[in-house]
């Protein structure tokens, strides 16, 4: 399974990078979600896979029954999942706010912080003036 997962993670990595390179910021976000999934799976593989019991000590016992799965990558992944969840949730809100302020979800049109350079022409924003929330 480890070998198979090596290819699966590779594929996921490739797909996430392809999504990241998009102009559409929502697609980029999806790419990021997929990329952190890739990372988690990779860590899991890196801790080596054994199709066995979870690292739980039976009631009254002192040691888990061997063989048990390596608990370290699990703890790391748990931490990483929650962290990336937090960051992605924030990033989503950021994209939303970006839409409200800049009137677009096309990163090519997000040129407020870096105005056109001499000799550069940029795309105009899609929505002129103040953008409105869809439900307001």
């Amino acid at each position, binding site marked *: 399974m480890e070998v198979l997962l090596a290819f699966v993670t590779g594929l996921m990595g490739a797909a996430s990078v392809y999504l990241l390179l998009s102009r559409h910021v929502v697609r980029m976000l999806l790419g990021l979600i997929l990329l952190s999934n*890739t990372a988690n799976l990779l860590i899991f593989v890196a801790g080596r896979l054994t199709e066995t019991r979870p690292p739980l000590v039976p009631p009254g016992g002192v040691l888990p029954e061997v063989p048990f799965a390596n608990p370290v990558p699990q703890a790391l992944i748990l931490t990483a999942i929650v962290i990336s969840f937090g960051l992605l949730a924030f990033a989503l809100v950021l994209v939303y706010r970006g839409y409200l302020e800049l009137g677009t979800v096309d990163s090519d049109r997000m040129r*407020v912080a870096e105005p056109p*350079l001499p000799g550069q022409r940029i795309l105009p924003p899609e929505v002129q003036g103040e953008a409105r929330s869809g439900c307001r």
Partner: protein
Amino acid sequence: MTALLVLPIVVPMATAVLTLAVWRHPGVQRWLGVAGSAVHLATAVGLLAQVVTGGILAVQIGNWPAPFGITLVADHLGAAMVLIAAIIGLAVAVYSVGDVDCDRQRHGFYPLYHVLLTGVSGSFLTGDLFNLYVWFEVMLSSSFVLLALGRDRAQIDGAIKYAAINLVSTVTFLIAVGILYGMTGTLNMADLAVRVPQVANAGLLTAVAVLFLVAFGIKAAIFPLFFWLPASYHTPAVSVSALFAGLLTKVGVYALIRTFTLIFTHDVGYTHTLLLYVAAATMVTGVLGAAAHYEVRRILSFHIVSQIGYMVMGLALFTPLALAGSVFYVIHHILVKTNLFLVAGLVARRAGTAEIRDIGGLYRAAPFLAVLFMVPAMSLAGVPPLSGFWAKLILIRAGLEAGVWWIVAVALAVGLLTLFSMSKIWLEAFWKPRPEAAPPLVPTASTPGMVVALYGPVVALAMLTVAIGLWGAPLMELGARAAGELLSRDAYIAAVLGRAP
């Protein structure tokens, strides 16, 4: 004693929690924020004093012995970084009282600020690679919010670019940690230093080292991974960009220094040569970027990039003098660059714009401000006898002694271009007469309290720059000691693992 190591992390975190608890009272938060920073500084001073007198300090969190639990370590480098971060933390906290508008203060500026400091301190002190990842994330998350916090459209634009690229960096880092764990079975950095040479596949190890290099490289804004920085640093509140300019990239540099002295020294000929080329490219592209811009904070942002090149150069040369130079450079740079951003804020306040071509006339109207700009600007350009001169001197000497002529030439040429860039700001904003069409200059501060808050930190940081310039021996001594520890890793490993390697 062991508390000394924990306090620089706990104090800002506690401050963050307290300010969070009084969310509805920005006034209270302000005082808590400044007081918390002051206490933070005190703990950092205590920590460095302890390290200087007693050597490397290590504490096992939760009493779990290394390499099983997480170890916090303070060597000279770590403790010095914590101290300088705390100094900047206090300076910017004071400045923010006058600078950050009520709106931002009402929306969590202070909790975010202190969480950022928590992350920075944690990064400098941790002895565990995964824990470093966590602190990076703490730093990153709060920096996202601080960057986007405001009503300015440019901020959101900058924040999106910043977030996208930094999230890539952070996942890269996570992948790298995972792979390294898969190769060595451990996460403790001292233990990694012991186990890495035993890895059978040295080629894979070098590849992972490069993976770390790019992950930290994005944070440190090296070539060609720095795009997020000039895209965003000029957008948020001045206090925020000053704090970022001083600390964030330097955490990346710190991580590079730490990992490429402690862990990845198995293939120095390859990895550090790569670092050297990267350093040169970083210096040059950064300084050229600055030459093409006319907005103060954008110019300064590009200079951050360029200066990072110098720090990496010291690491790449990998001699005691060069590493001491890197340490010296990092500390000097944090002081000076933060100060420049703070001054840039004052300039923009006074002139109503940050476009230097539209400013002018400040030399006549605000001579004191001119002096306050001149000191860090000249220091950045490496003009003696200011801190930047010594920093450059050490690195150039190290380069000459290592016989790497071309990097010395690059470093010197970039120094000249930096001087050009600083004098460009000087000529345009200060010396040039104020353009006819420009609106009248306005006072920077409306109340005496604001004057103290805005000018106090700037003056204090400028005085530190001058002090290091006139009396650089202690800092050099510190740098030399730090470099010694970095190169002979035994003391570090022994302090962490409790036994000789």
